[in-house]
């Protein structure tokens, strides 16, 4: 119990004293996972919407593959991204390994199927004739897609939360492709792992609490947006 209380106290001290290293780690976590979520939203949502609206043979297979991807183990993603970015790898020329960019890439790979899977379900969950109704109202295809997104905004924001939640808390891929380099690629999760392995439980708990607060804050804001513009 003392250990936890000590951790809590340490967290408050670290935050209140504006410990530069802690702030840097926190900010980088937010930046990296935020960027990865944005990338996954762009790709995952576009793919999810196209998939939900398209009708083709083998659609169920593709949706199943995406749904399987929603549970991709981060270490497997980390392994393959490392191989791709390795000096002799297909993308080695980019020189991205052990940079924040590599973490963004790996995290985007993790989050994209989550966003795509939830998007497919969200759009398919809308009444079947809604698409026809929107077209009948005189909408262009682009307007139809925008209106469908607006109608599915609750589950789609849930996709954002799930995507962000998946990557901000992920450690395996970040440590493999980022390398946990101090002041450069060290994020909250990798720092927590390192401090725990060093026996610095107070700092580890403090970092864990910061991570929880951060995740809560982001989800609170998203939930607020989600529930805000619904008429009562």
């Amino acid at each position, binding site marked *: 119990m003392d250990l936890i209380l000590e951790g809590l106290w340490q967290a408050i001290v670290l935050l209140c004293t504006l410990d530069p290293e802690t702030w840097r780690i926190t900010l980088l976590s937010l930046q990296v996972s935020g960027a990865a979520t944005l990338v996954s939203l762009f790709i995952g949502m576009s793919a999810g919407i196209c998939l939900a609206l398209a009708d083709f043979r083998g659609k169920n297979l593709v949706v199943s593959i995406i749904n399987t991807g929603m549970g991709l183990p981060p270490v497997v993603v980390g392994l393959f991204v490392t191989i791709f970015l390795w000096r002799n790898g297909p993308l080695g020329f980019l020189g991205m390994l052990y940079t924040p960019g590599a973490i963004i890439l790996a995290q985007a790979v993790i989050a994209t199927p989550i966003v795509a899977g939830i998007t497919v379900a969200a759009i398919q969950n809308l*009444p079947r*004739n*809604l698409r*026809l*109704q929107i*077209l*009948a*109202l*005189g*909408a*262009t295809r682009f*307007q139809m897609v925008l*209106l469908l997104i*607006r*109608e599915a905004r609750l589950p789609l924001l849930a996709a954002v939360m799930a995507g962000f939640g998946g990557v901000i808390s992920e450690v395996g891929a970040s440590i493999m492709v980022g390398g946990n380099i101090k002041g450069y690629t060290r994020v909250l999760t990798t720092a927590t792992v390192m401090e725990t392995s060093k026996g610095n439980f107070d700092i580890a708990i403090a970092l864990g609490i910061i991570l929880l607060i951060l995740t809560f804050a982001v989800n609170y804001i998203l939930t607020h947006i989600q529930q805000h513009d*619904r*008429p*009562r």
Partner: protein
Amino acid sequence: MNTEQTLLEVKNIDVRRGGVRVLEVPHFSLRQGEIVCLVGPNGSGKSTLLLTLCSLLERHAGELFFKGSKVVDQSSVLDFRRSTATVFQEPLLFDTTVYDNVASGLKIRGLPGREIRQRVEQNLERFSIKHLGQRAARKLSGGEAQRTSLARAFATRPEILFLDEPFSALDPPTREALIDDLDTIFRETKIAVVMSSHDQAEALRLADTMAVMQQGRLIQMGPPADVINFPADEFVASFVGMGTVLKGRVVQARQGTVSVSVADKLIECVGNAAIGQSVILCIRPENVTLALPAHHDGTSARNHFTGIITRLVPMGHFFKLNLDCGFFLSTHITCQSLEALDLQKGLPVSVSFKATAVHMIART
């Protein structure tokens, strides 16, 4: 038909689903201000035809003309859709307020705010939902939601309104009130309407033209009274509630009248047919007069029979009586008359109907 008046015309429409033809309509047209009701049982192709007419369903073949111009490419389809409006069986409202729902078609068209406000107000009032303007659409009752959907359609000032079974999901009192209001609005706005319904009563109430469909084909089209009284075939006859549909053979033919043998009984009817011709006779239940055998008087009706009551079916305000007169005959009787005559199953009764009350269809 005057082509200047024709708003919508389709030719040789062929719609397929999974390679199977589900709709085949050689010709269909709609005049300005005309209200056409497509009727038919479930799966007869009403909704498929309706969605094809409003260009929401891809067709395998066929042409669609709006005011004489062919609707063919993407831009002409968009223009056509913006000149029409469609309301589905389920209201399909957006998850926002009633006001914003009614405004949605106008926002899609990019109309200026002032015009949107004015049109939305007008249509909220027209459909008696002004007090619901700021209510969340998902919290509306079925009737309120369908009124919102109709207001949304009317706000775009369509030249043609397509209604796909718009009253099916509503309870009877709500449906009655909405049909009454729509009848008034249709007459006021003189809008052209194509609606589908499985209820012929709705067609009788609202439509100028009734089109009966079966298995993806238009079987008969005409004024509702004509379709109901003079069905083109056995299917239409039973669908429009003919009550009695009998198969027989012409045994005598005089000028304008024929005698038809049905189960060894002779039924006289008005019409022309050759002796030996197989025919179908249709008799509406309300055209059959019923009396107790002792009270049988000399009516002017040409057909008199004695029958046994085989079934009494309560229908609310009246009873449906099935009789065995050697052939099947169905008639209606009010609850009061049923009580006064003390009619029961197995009781013999006397029935009569005029030769003009029998609609004869030649069998091919």
